[in-house]
């Protein structure tokens, strides 16, 4: 039955999802905007974040989940960022960031990360305790307080990233490279190094979103597929490389996906989302026009 409180619940779920989605998608969008490559392994970085979070909360300290959570927030981005830099050095640089070869190479990376986690972490989906547990009472239902905190943290991290891009020198280099990499290089911007940093930054943002959602979704070696698909959708609908568009699309799609998932079916929501991407790209490949040679 679709009641008022059901709609409100759906809206809430959607909003939380949208905030996390924005964080995940931002990394993908940055990487495309600056480097003009599509990283198919992006979802695996999210998964790695979740796995590190599990490891921190259960294994490492065995102490209060809040401590594990905070440690994970610090450690996961570092580990995943390092993996990303290695991937950039060893592979992406060597194929010269050629769009099609990068896609195939990152597909390989996807398999390697996924199966690597399978080999070490195992095939099980393992739950995590949320760092803080409390319920917020709304008319008609109680809602997980942790989820609201997730939304808040996601927005905070988005804001921090925005400041980083807008106010720091590296952020300036990134924006310059995004606009015109050749001119940027002529002006002394270390483009290759910027690429490595951007790729790492994208991975770190993904890892952070993984840490945030781990207590909600658990950690599982196949969990990267969903965030990848949704981030893809957001980045394409919002316009590849267009950061503001990414955020708007994340809001729209996150809330839409959340609502349809709660009110109807998660699978149906995803079907609609994938067809939406296809439709946008067929009608307006303009968002991708900068990546294809004409």
């Amino acid at each position, binding site marked *: 039955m679709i009641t008022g409180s059901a709609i409100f619940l759906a809206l809430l779920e959607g909003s939380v999802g949208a905030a996390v989605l924005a964080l995940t998608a931002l990394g993908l969008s940055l990487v495309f905007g600056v480097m003009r490559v*599509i990283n198919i392994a992006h979802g695996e970085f999210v998964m790695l974040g979740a796995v590190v979070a599990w490891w921190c909360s259960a294994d490492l300290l065995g102490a209060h989940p809040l401590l594990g959570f905070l440690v994970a927030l610090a450690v996961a981005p570092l580990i995943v960022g390092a993996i990303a830099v290695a991937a950039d050095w060893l*592979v992406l640089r*060597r*194929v010269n960031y050629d*769009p*099609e*070869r990068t*896609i*195939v*190479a990152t*597909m*390989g*990376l*996807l*398999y*390697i*990360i*996924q*199966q*690597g*986690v*399978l*080999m070490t972490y*195992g*095939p099980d989906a393992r739950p995590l305790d949320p760092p803080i547990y409390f319920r917020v009472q709304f008319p008609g239902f109680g809602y997980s307080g942790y989820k609201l905190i997730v939304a808040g943290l996601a927005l905070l991290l988005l804001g921090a990233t925005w400041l980083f891009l807008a106010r720091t020198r590296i952020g300036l280099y990134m924006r310059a490279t995004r606009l015109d990499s050749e001119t940027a290089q002529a002006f002394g911007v270390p483009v290759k190094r910027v690429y490595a940093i951007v790729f790492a930054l994208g991975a770190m943002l993904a890892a952070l979103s993984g840490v945030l959602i781990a207590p909600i979704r658990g950690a599982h070696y196949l969990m990267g*597929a969903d965030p990848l*698909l949704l981030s*893809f959708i957001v980045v*394409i609908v919002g316009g590849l490389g267009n950061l503001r568009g990414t955020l708007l699309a994340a809001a729209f799609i996150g809330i839409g996906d959340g609502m349809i998932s709660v009110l109807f*079916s998660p*699978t*149906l929501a*995803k*079907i609609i989302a*994938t*067809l939406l*991407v*296809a439709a946008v*790209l*067929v009608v307006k*490949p303009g968002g*991708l026009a900068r*990546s*294809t*040679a*004409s």
Partner: protein
Amino acid sequence: MSGAATRIYAFHLAVIAALFLVQFALPAYHYGNVTRIMLYAVFAIGYNILLGYTGLLSLGHALFFAAGAYGAGLAAHWWGFGPIAALAVGIGAALLVSLVTGAIVYRTTGVAFLIVTLMLAQAAFLSTLYFNTITLGDQGIVLSLPPIALFGASLRLADPMVKYNAALIAFAGALLLSLWLLRSPFGRVLVAIRENEARTRLLGYNTALYRFTALVISGTLSGLAGALYCILFGYVGSSFASLQYSTEPLLWTLLGGAGTALGPLLGAGIMFYLIEFASSTGIEGYMIIVGVALVVITLWFPEGLAGWFRRLKRVRS
């Protein structure tokens, strides 16, 4: 036919003849493997027509494979069709899906094409899960088909020899078709489109129509592989539409050498045994070998093995 052409056709016919003869010498284990490899090769040959010849990278060919497989499987399961009839339905379904897809991506190329095909395959995969009352979801449909009645003989599908030769016939047809295509005026235009589409357009070719036709041929051939796979092995499930079945033909084609006629067979065969070997080690994450293969090929063998041989030959002569 010129001397060079005769030699090339003779070589490929020899490969087919070799595959025919070797079945009498193969131990049972490899017998089933080669059957599968030949079917995968048909899938890869279909894929190669789009990637190797026309230069269009698709990440959604599982869509066509699954269309063929589900066409055949659903017809056999819900309507009681026999093997030949089910095969026809499978091929028809793949043709239909190819036509519709081709219309959707008529003006789409490059990275956009890649993502659209990925999304369409994903939507198909999710649909097989959503409509699981019809498709039985990821559990899949197990078929028990009656024997094929051909020229008075009754061919049981459970018989490995029937499976092998059915796959061989399909492979031979696909190989010769792809070879003929490669050397025909039509095929030469596809290669031209791959090399320089703007130039090709101004040489008087409606390149979008050529791409469309290539996609329809590619999708139907891939669907044939799917339909035959479903009939010969008696199963179709959601996994047939998953990303894995879109990655694999890409891998086989790249490994074997895109743009060559025999590359797909080479790639499918090598990858099959590589994965068999990896899984026999007992390590749980053995599919990592697929990832490593993709990275290695992209870095060091972008033209695949067949292309690498060709380059060696040219250097030596």
